[in-house]
């Protein structure tokens, strides 16, 4: 009886807490498109309009011969060129090579996650490895490309190596920073509820690192793309970077911009994937 009373009390007390629910808009629901109302689409619409306007001005500048087709290109030239390299299979061949390099180097760099966790966890390991990590992080690692070519040759392996080096240390540093910034009160709470050191690591520290790991991966994607392009620019016989270089050397500016566009699309795409991943895995951030 006493319990029932307290229960009904508890339920009545939940009423004021419902203020946290998002405002319900059944009466005057705005029009929606793909789950977003028109207001929320506005930034996207303006963004697209901006691209169209700038692209149009660019095109106009080209048509009016304000820019020189010898050194620059414009949309009506490089967009058809893009379709041409898709048709001839050149783009697919380049992407196969560059994609493999990117994937190989990036996947290997994921080894930075366990290493970063270990460094964050064991201070001795941090002391031992910190000098190397500091150097590798500060050094413009692309300086190593000539050496990597000597070691691994002109093929895919040297590119995977430079991508790995560029991405790996970024991942290590972000992950280790995540371990160290774990909220001490969460660790204390887990300890208070009887958590062992291992449980604290797996159930508190690792989950709290997730946003840091994803932030590291996002930076790593950027660095890996730099690795792909630099590696191929400097020493290769195939891939997007190679095509960019040869296009520039042959003054095939339309081809250059077509390849650049592909690169930009991929860079933006990977960034988007990681943003979505972050929202999924760490919705409590921001």
């Amino acid at each position, binding site marked *: 009886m006493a319990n029932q009373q307290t*229960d009904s009390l*508890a339920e009545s*007390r939940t009423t004021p*807490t419902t203020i946290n629910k998002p405002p319900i808009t059944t009466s005057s629901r705005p029009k929606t498109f793909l789950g977003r109302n028109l207001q929320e689409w506005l930034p996207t619409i303006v963004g697209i309009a901006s691209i169209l306007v700038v692209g149009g001005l660019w095109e106009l500048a080209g048509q009016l011969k304000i820019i020189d087709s010898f050194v620059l290109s414009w949309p009506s030239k490089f967009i058809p060129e893009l379709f041409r390299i898709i048709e001839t299979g050149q783009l697919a061949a380049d992407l196969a090579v560059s994609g493999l390099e990117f994937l190989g180097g990036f996947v290997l760099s994921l080894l930075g996650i366990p290493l970063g966790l270990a460094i964050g966890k064991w201070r001795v390991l941090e002391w031992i490895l910190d000098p190397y990590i500091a150097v590798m992080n500060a050094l413009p690692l692309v300086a190593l490309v000539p050496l990597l070519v000597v070691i691994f040759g002109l093929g895919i392996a040297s590119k995977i190596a430079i991508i790995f080096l560029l991405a790996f240390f970024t991942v290590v540093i972000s992950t280790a920073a995540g371990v160290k910034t774990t909220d001490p*009160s969460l660790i204390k709470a*887990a300890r208070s*509820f009887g958590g062992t050191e291992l449980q604290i690591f797996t*159930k508190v520290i690792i989950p709290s690192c*997730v946003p840091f790991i994803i932030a590291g991966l996002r930076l790593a994607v950027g660095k890996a793309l730099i690795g792909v392009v630099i590696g191929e620019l400097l020493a290769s016989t195939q891939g997007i970077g190679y095509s960019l270089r040869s296009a520039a050397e042959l003054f095939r500016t339309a081809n250059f911009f077509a390849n650049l566009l592909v690169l930009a699309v991929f860079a933006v795409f990977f960034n988007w994937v990681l943003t979505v991943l972050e929202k999924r895995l760490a*919705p409590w951030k921001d």
Partner: protein
Amino acid sequence: MEPNIQLKDINLVYKTRNGEMVDAITNLSVDIFPGEFVSVVGPSGCGKSTLIQLIDGLLKPTSGEIIVNKKRVTGPSPDRAVVFQDFALMPWRDVNKNVLLGPELRGKTNSFKEKAMDTIRMVGLKNFERKYPYQLSGGMKQRAAIARALTNEPEILLMDEPFAAVDAQMREIMQEELIRIWQATGKTVVFITHSIDEAVYMSNRVLLMSARPGRFIDELKIELPYPRTLEVKNSQLYFEYRTHVWEHLKTEVHKVYDTQAS
């Protein structure tokens, strides 16, 4: 009645970053009895939170003995649970999973699922089981933290300024609810607060702590009936208790103020 918490001559000395030795707590002794609601008030920095961590077993005293249920405390144990001031909820866990933290860490999630549902209902978070802490208000987060502590079925609830981060109106509601929960469950509650009003309003007994190094300088039995209605709050006796606590605490607060000012 046998006390279920005994602090015997506790001293705690800690080392600061610059190597200075600081006495946090000196010669502190107290007996707390089963089912009691005991508040600890004192000036800021007097070691109130340290006291909670000592009883919980998160900290070890430099000397002295802490005995809970006739056993010497060597570390945290399920017979005690802490409600932290900053809630300390795992942001990646929803309310239900946060509440089940204790059982999960002991590998007993399944047998506590119903208990978790009960405590979630008891603290008024029914229908919020799947919400994440970032989707909750301060008051609701603290309810979740209380539910987490209760789900672990402790005998003793250690509360470290639990309502300090909750807004003033929510605080009053939470105070009433905590009394209700305490009366319904019969737990022993050790309640840290810096609010004299809160201490007098909630407790059977108020312990007054000195400025650092912390020790108990006085204790006051609050002989007011529960539930403590507005009438009780407006009574002469309630007013006298508050005045008494403040008179005794004033000099200690001034000590802290003077050291901070200098």
